[in-house]
């Protein structure tokens, strides 16, 4: 039985569609990986921001602590970088309101950043899951390996080179 023109057209269409689909899947995987890397960078930025907040608060705290506070107490207080633990120090209660307001504010900011981090983590988890599912559904190991290499490259891209725009 000779293939008809219609039959050949159908086969070509199916093959073309598959290739297009594969291409689209590959593009999507890379896009999702980029989004995931962006989120990772946002989380790193939050961590850095939190460190800055505590650096500033610690610096103010150090200035506010009277000279008669023992060196080891001072050093322990500055080491913890955590409002709940800082409040456990006896000398903290002798400090004036302005520095206490700063510590309270640092705590609030930290909580807000931690919350943002949790939201980002949930988003990132979904993206990673989607990438994995798309990879599983790729038709060939060769194609998957090529895409995996590209994923690695994106994952290792420095945050400074990642665009903030979605």
């Amino acid at each position, binding site marked *: 039985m000779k293939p008809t023109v219609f039959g050949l057209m159908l086969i070509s269409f199916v093959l073309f569609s598959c290739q297009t689909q594969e291409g689209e899947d590959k593009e999507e995987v890379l896009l999702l990986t980029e989004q995931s890397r962006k989120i990772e960078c946002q989380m790193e930025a939050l961590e850095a921001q939190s460190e800055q907040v505590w650096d500033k608060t610690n610096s103010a705290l150090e200035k506010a602590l009277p000279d008669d506070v023992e060196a080891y107490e001072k050093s322990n207080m500055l080491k913890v970088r955590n409002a709940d633990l800082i409040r456990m120090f006896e000398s903290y209660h002798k400090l004036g309101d302005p520095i206490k307001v700063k510590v309270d504010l640092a705590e609030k900011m930290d909580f807000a950043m931690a919350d943002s981090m949790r939201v980002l983590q949930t988003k990132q988890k979904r993206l990673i*899951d989607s990438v994995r599912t798309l990879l599983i559904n790729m038709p060939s190991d060769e194609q998957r390996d090529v895409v995996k290499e590209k994923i690695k490259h994106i994952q290792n891209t420095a945050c400074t080179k990642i665009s903030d725009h979605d």
Partner: protein
Amino acid sequence: MDTIDDDPSEDLSAEELDFDIARDWMDLQIEVERFTPGYRPPTAARSLAYTTLAAYESVAPGMPSYRSIQTEFDVLDIPEIDTEERYNWEIVLNACYSECLGYFYPTAPTAQQSSILQMERAWRRLLEEKETDLAVVERSIERGREVARIIYEWSVTDEAGHESYLRNADPNYEPPEGPGMWSPTYPDFSPALFPHFGDVRTFAANSDVRVDPPLEYSEEPTSQIYVQALETMNMVNEIKEGGRFEDRWIAEFWSDDCPILTFTPAGRWIRITSQVLESDRVNLAKALYSYAKVGIALSDAGVRCWDEKYRINYLRPIDYIHKVMGETDWNSIMCPDGSGQYFTPNFPSYPSGHATFAAAAAEVLRDIYGNYFPFTDRCHEGRSEFIGTPRSYNSFEEMAEENGYSRIPLGVHFRMDSEAGIDLGRKVGREVNKMKWHN
């Protein structure tokens, strides 16, 4: 981070894998609890129990020598695995721990939140680099997450325990008054910590697990309680004067009362467990079994101890020494954290929480690793704020006894509190040992 085998495509049971992933996550957990507000000893122990149980259950089908203990709890319904398919147990665990820490420490500060993410990412990348079959990865992650979710949802049904880190004190609680009864203590007079913690659900030890009655309260100098108060007071005084070095060392070594410096007493026994795993180089299955047993024992120890503390409501040595013996300037030496103050824990004295936690953990560790286990505890090696120099023991029981005793030279307990705590902890541990852990 390392695994025993480099070829993960093999169908390895958890008995053929290294324990590093479990140890790394447990180390992180006790660090996270230290910095997250409200995780005081019994509620910290509760979170450890649910996490270690989730980890154990998620991998139980891959541990031929062990079995799921979910039948011990009527309501748990953890699905079977697909026996036709392969699972990567380390990937299961990584997903499970990551979920559990999210569930049980939802208020962790940014730095700790970030540590959780970094731990998950580091292990995920390492394991997924080695695991070539993505369907196995997907299936394993799903398993870890599902078991974590089921265990967490079960934990939520325990109303007294759920989110108890947000309810350290009850503003409506008024301690009963009368001679020999506990009331908030000098110098901070903090309100009672977890006065209703006895209502929290236990895993193995029910409310029949109790202590014997304490010494009868008396103010007579010839009474046994007077003698014990004198012992506590004199010991502390001698330490303050520079004497009794070994007792001071023991007191500070086991204190773990100061979140500024260390993990909780429950976290301490998780760290001890990690050191035991390291010294024995056990496989992953045995590590998960050890952590789950210790975690559950610690949690039940916390609940039973707090229930007994508030049922009996015995006063602390500091109140006896101030009010009965007239030494109104006397104070304990807890805790050496550089906070500038010395305290007495803000809950009734009898039985000792440290002793109960210690004996419960020691009892289950003894059951797993034997009566004779020479061991050096390096939990606080290198600390400069207090005497953390490692101490060596021949058995877990010896460690527990010393942990209980440490509260006397610290000045926060009578000898009877420590002895009753050891007794209660052992009973709790035995109940945990009775659970059907093995096939």
